[in-house]
């Protein structure tokens, strides 16, 4: 860890602990109830050996004629065991309910807060983090925190209380030297466990890393299976897999070796305490310094303490992992979103805005620079798009087409002094974010749909629309017949657990999803690439009616998609290279014309067409 990362970790940890404190201040009562229950449970745990000792002493004294233990008194004493156990059962139940129950409330609240934050964060965040990384926060990390705040706290409190109570009892009521002698191995035990814990943790991490590598390799081999098979690489893949498999095996064996020493060492040490009791306690009992019953009490206490103490290592591990995870989670929770209302000026109040925007869009000397590498994605773009007009955007991959609409929808924000986008004269950054987006219908490039029903995906808004409206939108985007072929029609589930759609079907459903929203501004981001030419023609014909009265931006690779636009711009390296109508651009005889010819076939090769 570099110094910078270390201080970042500390800061996140501090904030994370602050969050935990906030949680505790709201839920402390649960923990207090839990601790009271633990105290009761521990008292009961201690009472059992004490009672056994008393009974033994009474029996021994009776046989030696010093006491008179009647059968009735014996029965009474013995039935107390059951009474103690019942109280302990209740106490234990309540402990778990309060403490571990509270930890799951924390689990719920944190996961919910995390998702809430995820909903707020922008592409700036998601471009930096992989899905797996973010998921791990909700699974592994949150799990570690929940365990630390539940099981971890419960066991640690339990162990401390037991140790304190039993030591106090022994010192007050019994021989101090014996108590000390028997308790000597405990601190050693704790030290050994925590040292071992570090070793085990290290090797465990190696196991996890090698497992992650193995999984990564496997995932790649399977995802690339078509290449592997086409190029007859199976045997090499197997050999390569073997390497990762072997590494994982070695890591596991290394872990096993240290684990194999760990547990026997623990039981050896606990046996040594019994040995001390046996020799030392046995001898002083014979000398009459302690009674037989007291010998049995100490013996019982040892039995009661050994288990929690061997847990200490595990719990320290829990707490340590919890700490690291808290810091990671708080990093997410304190993540600043970079696009929000009031980032620049106070947004205009909605009651001062029209219900719907008209859709006069002006890009004014707009420039945009991406990320740390400072790639210029847009360079001085000016477009004046009147209400009801369609803008066609075409250009090479990476020429800035998608950036243009990402700035319009405020997926990214352009910097100060880098130009301006206005709609109906409002700077888009002065409009409330959700109002702006409420006025824009969007069909994405990556045709993303959710694993829910078709009607959920098409409807996709707060408003519940009628079946007819949904069917209508689906018809307009030319996917109605496909939908009707599915067994459950509009109720067909999509995604892994349902039907896998073809790319073209997905794109058309995405179009339906945007159409149904009935927005004054529509953006189609290269959304017809996976449908064939004929279908494209039909969809375009349908859209022609839909575009009436709306401002549209259509991004495409195929010229046929944007041919009819009122204005076409050709982007290259973030600049507008050419602009005009289709015919104008053709007669301009520039890039557009070249693209057009390439797509048709250039004159030499296309000789056959004449």
């Amino acid at each position, binding site marked *: 860890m570099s110094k910078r990362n270390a201080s970042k970790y500390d800061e996140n940890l501090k904030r994370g602990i602050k969050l935990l404190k906030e949680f505790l201040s709201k839920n402390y009562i649960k923990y207090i109830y839990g601790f009271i229950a633990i105290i009761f449970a521990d008292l009961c745990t201690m009472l059992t050996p004490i009672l056994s000792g008393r009974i033994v002493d009474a029996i021994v004294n009776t*046989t030696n004629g010093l006491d008179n*233990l009647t059968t009735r008194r014996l029965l009474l004493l013995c039935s107390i065991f059951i009474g103690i156990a019942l109280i302990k059962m209740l106490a234990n139940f309540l402990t778990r309910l309060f403490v571990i129950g509270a930890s799951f409330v924390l689990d719920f609240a944190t996961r919910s807060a995390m998702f809430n934050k*995820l909903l707020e964060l922008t592409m700036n965040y998601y471009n930096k983090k992989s*899905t797996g990384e973010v998921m791990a926060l909700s699974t592994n990390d949150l799990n570690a925190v929940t365990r630390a705040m539940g099981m971890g706290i419960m066991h640690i409190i339990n162990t401390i209380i037991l140790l304190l109570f039993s030591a106090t009892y022994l010192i007050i009521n019994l021989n101090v030297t014996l108590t000390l002698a028997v308790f000597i191995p405990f601190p050693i035990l704790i030290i050994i466990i925590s040292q071992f814990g570090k070793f085990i943790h290290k090797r465990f991490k190696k196991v996890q890393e090698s497992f992650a590598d193995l999984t990564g390799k496997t995932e790649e*081999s399977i995802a690339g299976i078509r290449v592997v*098979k086409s190029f007859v690489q199976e045997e090499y893949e197997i050999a390569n897999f073997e390497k990762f498999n072997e590494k994982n095996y070695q890591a596991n064996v290394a872990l096993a070796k240290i684990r194999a020493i760990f547990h026997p060492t623990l039981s050896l040490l606990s046996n040594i305490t019994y040995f001390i009791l046996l020799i030392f306690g046995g001898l002083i009992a014979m000398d009459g310094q302690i009674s037989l019953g007291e010998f049995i009490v100490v013996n019982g206490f040892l039995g009661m303490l050994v288990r929690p103490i061997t847990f200490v290592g595990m719990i320290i591990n829990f707490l340590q992992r919890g700490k690291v995870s808290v810091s990671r989670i708080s990093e997410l929770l304190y993540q600043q979103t970079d696009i929000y209302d009031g980032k620049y000026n106070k947004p205009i109040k909605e009651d001062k805005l029209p219900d719907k925007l008209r859709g006069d869009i002006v890009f004014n000397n707009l420039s945009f620079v991406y990320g740390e590498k400072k790639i210029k994605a847009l360079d001085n773009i000016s477009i004046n798009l009147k209400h009801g007009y369609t803008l066609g955007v075409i250009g090479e991959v990476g020429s800035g087409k998608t950036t243009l609409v990402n700035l319009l929808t405020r997926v990214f924000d352009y910097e100060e002094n880098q130009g301006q986008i206005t709609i109906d004269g409002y700077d888009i950054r002065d409009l409330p974010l959700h109002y702006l987006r409420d006025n824009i219908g969007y069909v994405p490039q990556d045709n*993303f749909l959710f694993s829910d029903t078709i009607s959920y995906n098409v409807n996709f808004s707060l408003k519940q629309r009628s079946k007819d409206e949904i069917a209508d939108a689906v018809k307009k985007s030319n996917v109605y017949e496909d939908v009707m072929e599915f067994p459950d029609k509009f109720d067909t589930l999509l995604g892994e657990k349902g039907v896998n759609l073809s790319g073209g079907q997905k794109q058309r459903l995405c179009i339906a999803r945007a159409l149904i929203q009935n927005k004054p501004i529509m953006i189609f981001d290269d959304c017809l690439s996976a449908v064939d030419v004929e279908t494209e023609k039909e969809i375009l014909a349908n859209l022609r009616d839909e575009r009436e009265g709306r401002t549209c931006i259509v991004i495409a690779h195929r010229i046929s998609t944007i041919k009819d636009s009122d204005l076409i711009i050709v982007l290259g390296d973030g600049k507008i290279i050419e602009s005009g109508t289709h015919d104008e651009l053709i007669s301009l005889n520039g890039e557009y014309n070249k693209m057009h010819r390439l797509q048709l076939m250039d004159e030499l090769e296309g000789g056959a067409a004449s």
Partner: protein
Amino acid sequence: MTGMNKGFRAGSSAGRSISLDEKQKIGKDSLKNLLKHAIPYWPWFLLALLLVTMITVTELIRPYLLGLAIDDISKAISNPETVSDYKDHIMSLGIIFISVAFLQFVISYFNTIILNVTSAKIIKALRSKVFAHVMSLPFRYFDKTPVGSVVTRICNDTNSINEMYVNVLVNFFRDIFMMIGVIITMFLLDVKMTLVVLSVVPLMAFAAILFRKKARKIHTSIRARLSAINIFLSEHISGMKIVQLFNMQKVKQSEFDKINLQYMNENKSRIKLWGIFRPFMEVVSAIALALIMWVGGKDVLTSTISIGVVYMFINYSRKFFHPIMSLTEMYNTTQASLVSSERIEVLLNTLPEKKPVSAKSLYDSKGKIEFKNVWFAYDDENWILKDVSFTVSPGEKVAIVGTTGAGKTTIISLILGFYRHQKGDILIDGISINDIDLQELRKEIGTVRQDVFLFKGDIETNIKLYNDIPIEQVIKAAKTVNASKFINQLEDTYKEEVNHRGTTFSEGQRQLLSFARALVNNPKILLLDEATSSVDTKTELLIQEGMLQMMEGRTSITIAHRLSTIVHSDEILFIHKGRIKEQGTHKELLKKKGYYYDLYTIQYS
């Protein structure tokens, strides 16, 4: 192990629906299947069992020695004059005690090592077996199965079986041995007291059975809820832009909170269940303790047994009850392992790609391809190819055109032997594809797929893959297909790092790399699925040139989208809805004014 749920997204290949039932039925053979992987290692397990037996004996000796010590103390108290004898005796007990403890230490150590290492070996071997089997599976399997679930089979399910061997199997025997050992010891010590201890067993067994039923239900349900959360999260992280642009944050938050709440509630039920079960078992063992103390106490008063024996019974009863609890709790791990084992079994029983009984050699392949009345369907009768016949002579360039879903890609897949045609025949150099060893066949073919898959590594290995090919040949291939220009501009040229999925390379660069990959083996046949996704004009020209260079002197079949590719072909097949509708050169087909002409005018004019 922490769950390694990385949430793999399944490749969006292949259309048909998948419903993998995660709750596979667990048959009688499950346990047998699970254990059979251990058969080659049986001597080690036998040794482990022997050691476990020894550990059990040492465990049983300890309370016995303590009981004897207690009797010594009690006798010493009643007869103070013999104290020194008893002191000597207790010292020797102590020495035996500590010796036994050391013995147990050594045995436990070796036992753990043997078990863990053997188990790791089993898992390693099983993993290799499963992976090798997966590599041999036919394409239909990968069409139907998401990548993530195959990975889970190979990595996670094998891990869960490891749990079974290391923890469950041996603890199971340890628990059983312990129970048997305790019963024998108790009977040898005192029959009446033994019966007293055993009298609470029915109560315990009843509770255990009840618990097991409930626990199974709750645990299954928790797993399901957790996986629902994971699926939801991974999907919404990928689709966050859509959620935000459609202003759906509030809806999504409440959808998420709903499943999150269900998860919490299931967990609370689990807490309650466990909060009752374990303490209840303690109540039962307290009943046993009370009975032992009462019955034993009376007998001590009448001097029928010694106080040391009563102590032994208290200890032995605990050692007897503990296995009952742990056996009950073990059930969950077993269940998970059994499910994993069953899944692996299903995978291993999936038939691999067929190998011809007596393969004819493709020695010195010419590269002639013939389709004779080929019919093909992915499922029973939904014909994708209908009566397709054509011949490609060695060195000929053939272009396939047609609308999406016409069956173009299927033709290429069939030539590669990814699927078996149902009717007709496909001949390579006059030999039926059914009689050719598929691996040998594929070695003669270079393929380029629409979506280029890059492996983690460097440029060189991405071109030559794992084949033993000198770098000169790699460079030559890259030059031929126009890839060398951009490669030479990279900092480390051919050693330039390629990350996971090669995301640092542009679409055009990826395509050029895949051309080089197809060419580097100098194949007789090229099968090209031309990429539709457009790249910039300059790269486009590079790609076109590269393709033409590649095809020189080879038999090639190209699914063509670019007109330039089409006009350079010796022959064009126009396919519509699984049938070859038209066949001929570009000029011939245009003259026909048929399907091809229509497509041509729509697309290019």
